[in-house]
């Protein structure tokens, strides 16, 4: 502690788990928006990651409410948010935005996308798998031309609705923080927009990592055209994201409100590692530099490098980007609680190791989506498995 803080401010209220929540929803929104690119704007190159991105979004979305739930003082009362929401509260809308996104957007889109395959798998499989796939089709087993066309059209429409929904999902998370006028570090109209673009960045980076790593494990070749495209998208999204954050930063400096002194003190001391080192240098500047040089985003790539080298550089940059985005969430959530609202002092946050809100829980919650994704990928393989299917198609 340093300076004066209100006595009630000794305890930080929102812990590591609340850092996780915007991080995970960001990944959901980002992965979905990437998938939508292929669908709506017909970006053929990223097609190999389309289904993977959808399943990734679903896996992370299923985990998104868990850190919130675990953090509540009375988790057993959380259903009250649905029963008696306070319509003036930004947080009360979480349940509705979440339910809308999960059921209307993601599940429906995945269902239409996979229906044909599920029917085929159901015909091919034996035993319980047969019943599983049959159950998943919900009995809609018609594979006639008009019905397949309908699947496609429906999928497209859902994506069109899905894009603003993904914006809503994550912009809304930004609003939860941005609308707290009591907190000068949070209170900003740019917050939802910054959240959104950092979400897109993190989503693209995640799908890129997953695609490379999964291909490695399946010992399949990585489609370099796809990877180059992903890397370029990542680069563009980062440029927008960085510009927005710079705008926010310059705006704060220029307005120089009464909070500016304590906030600069906080950045120089408490947030130095997480903001300057991790977020800015490691998470932004270095990957931006690498992507700018090696990806075809600028002028077909300044330096071309072998496929092998580019793959490595993209992978490394994407990992750095993920670390950077996690630091952004940390700097927002924890940073917003490190200075006193008296603007006279700073406090400290020590992450506990065990315990419900500790590091262990966080790691488990971070690992969980990957487990879910593994199951999803087993049940709904996101890549073309030509052999068996082609045989069936030919029948």
């Amino acid at each position: 502690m340093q300076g004066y803080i209100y006595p009630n401010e000794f305890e930080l209220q929102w812990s590591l788990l609340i850092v996780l929540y915007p991080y995970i929803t960001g990944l959901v929104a980002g992965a979905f928006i990437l998938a939508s690119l292929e669908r709506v704007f017909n970006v053929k190159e990223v097609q190999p990651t389309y289904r993977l991105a959808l399943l990734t979004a679903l896996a992370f979305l299923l985990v998104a409410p868990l850190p919130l739930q675990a953090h509540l003082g009375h988790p057993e009362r959380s259903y009250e948010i649905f029963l008696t929401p306070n319509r003036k509260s930004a947080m009360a809308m979480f349940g509705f935005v979440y339910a809308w996104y999960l059921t209307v957007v993601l599940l429906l889109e995945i269902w239409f996308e996979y229906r044909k395959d599920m029917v085929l798998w159901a015909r091919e499989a034996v035993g319980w798998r047969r019943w599983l796939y049959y159950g998943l089709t919900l009995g809609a087993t018609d594979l006639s031309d008009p019905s397949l066309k309908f699947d496609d059209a429906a999928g497209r429409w859902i994506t069109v609705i899905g894009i603003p929904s993904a914006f809503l999902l994550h912009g809304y998370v930004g609003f939860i923080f941005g609308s707290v006028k009591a907190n000068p570090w949070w209170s900003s109209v740019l917050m939802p927009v910054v959240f959104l673009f950092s979400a897109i960045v993190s989503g693209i980076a995640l799908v890129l990592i997953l695609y490379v790593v999964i291909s490695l494990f399946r010992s399949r070749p990585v489609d370099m055209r796809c990877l180059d495209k992903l890397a370029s998208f990542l680069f563009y999204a980062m440029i927008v994201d960085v510009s927005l954050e710079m705008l926010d930063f310059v705006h704060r400096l220029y307005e120089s409100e009464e909070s500016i002194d304590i906030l600069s003190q906080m950045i120089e001391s408490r947030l130095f590692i997480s903001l300057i080192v991790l977020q800015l240098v490691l998470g932004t500047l270095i990957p931006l530099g690498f992507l700018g040089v090696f990806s075809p985003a600028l002028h077909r790539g300044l330096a071309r490098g072998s496929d092998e080298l580019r793959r490595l550089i993209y992978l490394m940059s994407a990992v750095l980007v993920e670390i950077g985005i996690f630091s952004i969430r940390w700097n927002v959530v924890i940073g917003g609680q490190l200075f006193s609202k008296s603007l006279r002092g700073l406090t400290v946050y020590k992450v506990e190791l065990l315990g419900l809100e500790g590091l262990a829980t966080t790691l488990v919650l971070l690992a969980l989506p990957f487990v879910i994704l593994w199951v999803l990928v087993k049940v709904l393989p996101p890549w073309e498995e030509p052999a068996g299917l082609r045989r069936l198609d030919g029948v």
Partner: protein
Amino acid sequence: MTRDEEPSVAPADDPRPTPAVDRRRFVEDALKACAAGCPLILAVMRLPAAAAQRPAGEAAYDPAEHLYGMGIDIQKCIGCGRCVAACKAENDVPLDGYHFNTWVERYVIDEDGDVTVDSPNGGFDGFPPPAAESEIRRTFFVPKLCNHCANPPCVQVCPVGATFSTPDGVVLVDEQYCIGCRYCIQACPYGARWFHPTKHVAAKCTLCYHRLVKGLVPACVEVCPTGARIFGEVEQRPTPLARFMRMNDVQVLKPHLNTRPKVYYANLDGEVR
């Protein structure tokens, strides 16, 4: 007396010799003082004695008839911390140094204009002499509590409506209903809320609502030896608060946030946030 002449340390007649006074004994003392002061203050308050004693007072209480607020005269506060102790005893607030419905801050402004603020243990034990390196220009105590804002951000953000404003202008938390998300604690600009370590719900000053409905004043008001805390109705009624607001230039904390506080300070220094 101008503010420059005000004592810069806790007054010599402070009954507690050291800050390390036995807390339990002190709370007992405070309660005794509270009991002793009760009739006196009530007389001053000109509350009808019947209202104060009426056992079934709650039945007759009509919240729509009231709009409560509090006045604080900074020049009168001597930083004895009795209000802090009385509040903790009255409202069952944990006796540690991190949970307060009300606390007292001390501002010490030296010759260079540098401001030092402290609130050791929320002012519960009074204040040790300031560790002033240069000459003190002026110093004063500022009691703080929930402002029972008329436009309360804490109520706005609560996802389930567990935090609410009563018709008589008090902001309360329903602890049977609060889900413990702590959004309200983040939204309060004054640090007036805390999280109950065993009940796992948001907690805060209730203006001693359980006493108000019986026609009593809040515990902190009752024990204040100098009358620095003034309780009453905000709107033109012949109560001490109305008189206080007529006689003084009153200000509220952080007015730019438009929370419209109902705790009014007289003689507030610009350094206070």
